[in-house]
């Protein structure tokens, strides 16, 4: 297990290197003179030359990349061109928002998707199955950011039940935090609930047809026991796979959803970075997203062993 973990982490490094190079090269090709962006429009040509010298902007791209990488590994992702705030600090403040939203959406998808999938599989071909499958079909077709707007219109404007936007850290006011995160969580997680439901349904259908399920029935185990104790644990691996694979999509969804609910997360950082052509901010935020996806994929793989004792690394 430890050996496997080590191998997997070792494999992540080259991938992360290539992806960070991709992000770096992409952002250094942004139009406009970065020296002007750093010291402002009113600077003289001499000032700009000094800035270029100082930030190594005239160096070849590979040299710049290595210098950037060295600083990044040491935790220095540069400063925002606009606010002069260190990018690493911005990330420290904003990452919890995005990660919390993604995590809550994932939990929602599992809590909604797995039971519905089980119900659909148990009532295969019946009314409940068609109903749940129809719901899933609808859920994946709803543009999630539109869903967010509709939730605000319904629960904040019309019913005045939930605050429409804003953010408080969980550590400061847990209840208020959860209250503010309910609608964003549904916005990000609904489509994934549908995917989890479909995967659970088809995995359960396969498991329910197997001999050990018939044996359990023959031994007189109750329907509930057969479904939840015998069959469901055996259907978990493909379900976890879908959850893991979709997490990247969830992060992408979180980026847009943060804009709907004015959440100060990494997504808002990226979008504002794009509008301001603030390349250190884009680089840092993208790097964070990509590293998160890789780590979540790793955790997904590791969770197989915890769920299925037959899986050995």
């Amino acid at each position, binding site marked *: 297990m430890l050996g496997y973990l080590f191998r997997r982490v070792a494999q992540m490094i080259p*991938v992360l290197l*290539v*992806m960070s190079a*991709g*992000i770096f090269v*992409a*952002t250094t*090709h*942004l*139009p406009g003179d970065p020296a002007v962006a750093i010291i402002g429009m009113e600077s003289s040509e001499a000032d700009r030359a000094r800035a270029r010298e100082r930030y190594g902007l005239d160096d070849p791209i590979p040299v710049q990349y290595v210098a950037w990488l060295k600083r990044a590994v040491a935790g220095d992702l540069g400063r925002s061109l606009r606010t002069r705030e260190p990018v690493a600090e911005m990330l420290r403040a904003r990452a919890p928002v995005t990660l919390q939203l993604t995590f809550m959406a994932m939990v929602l998808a599992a809590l909604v998707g797995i039971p519905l999938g089980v119900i*659909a599989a148990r009532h*295969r*071909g019946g009314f409940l*199955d*068609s109903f749940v*499958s129809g719901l899933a*079909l*609808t859920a*994946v*077709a*709803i*543009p*999630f*950011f*539109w869903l967010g*707007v*509709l939730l*605000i*219109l319904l629960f*904040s*404007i019309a019913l005045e039940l939930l605050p*429409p936007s804003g953010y408080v850290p969980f550590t400061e006011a847990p209840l208020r935090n959860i209250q503010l995160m309910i609608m964003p969580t549904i916005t990000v997680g609904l489509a994934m609930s549908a995917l989890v439901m*479909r*995967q659970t*349904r*088809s995995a359960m*259908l396969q498991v329910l047809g197997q001999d050990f399920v018939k044996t359990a029935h023959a031994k007189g185990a109750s329907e509930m026991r057969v479904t939840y104790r015998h069959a469901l644990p055996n259907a978990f691996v*493909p379900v976890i796979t879908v959850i893991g694979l979709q997490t*990247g*999509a969830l*992060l*992408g*969804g979180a*980026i*847009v959803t943060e*804009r*709907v609910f004015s959440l100060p997360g990494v997504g808002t950082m*990226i*979008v504002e*970075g*794009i*509008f301001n052509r603030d390349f250190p901010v*884009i680089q840092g935020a*993208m790097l964070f*997203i*990509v590293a998160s*996806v*890789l780590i979540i*994929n790793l955790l997904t793989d590791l969770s197989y062993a915890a769920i299925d004792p037959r899986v050995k690394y």
Partner: protein
Amino acid sequence: MVAVASPRGGLWSAAKGSGLVRLCIGLGTIALVLFVALFAPLIAPQPPDLIDFMSIASPPSTEHLLGTDEAGRDILSRIFYGARVSVAVVFVSVFTAMLFGVSLGLVSGYRGGWVDDIIMRVIDIVISFPTLVLALLIIALLGPGLQNAIVAISIVYIPYFARLTRGEVLSLKSRDYVSAALSTGTPHRVILFKEILPNLLGNIVVYASLAASEALITESALSFLGLGVQPPTPSWGYMIAAGMQYSSYWWISLFPGLAIFVTVIGFNFLGDTLRDAFDPTLARRTRSSGSGKEG
């Protein structure tokens, strides 16, 4: 693009019952969206940017069926014109992604060896970016705008087409009829285009249809963020964002989103039915194990 080309296994036999209904809904919806996009100037009640000063942000009425937006423009007309943008982005980007992706997949799968290794490693890396994140990165590089949104969405979907094609090619190239063609001295180019390509086209069309629904959501998400189509050109995503600023006027956001939703359902139904038709084993499996589709 999504022409129903005589699939093996028979479209109609596979699309019986609920499948037939789905196919009709799918085809009908997409046809309707295409019609609206093509003939927007003829069927729209008003020009999309005509401002009615007498009814600014007025709710749906007989005069303005879906109401007017915050600037007094007719929402129905803007949805019709917005269809042009969405259809253009979706079709052009999915077609471009298909063209490049299928070519890469063909070369990768058929040629094998180091060419395959290089192409697939690059694709592995591109695929590990979440689609929206990659699209945002490309937009960050190129700047916001319609054309750049098309480029971004095309690039995002190339790897998926390439992977799908490569997998198919790997299985097809070991078939007997390919060996037979090779043994008679048929050139590789002919084998690729006459023997292999026609046999994988079915799956490609199915995937294209499903990719189109995703591409539409990606495009509207970009426009929603203000990074896609730039105003005053009407786009569904941007209309939703604009309506969000005026939350007491619910109709401004509601109807454009509904347009996206209906179009996505159309593409999904089309894709699902085509998949069942092109893959008779799946259709049979699904039918014998009850209704609905797997995974």
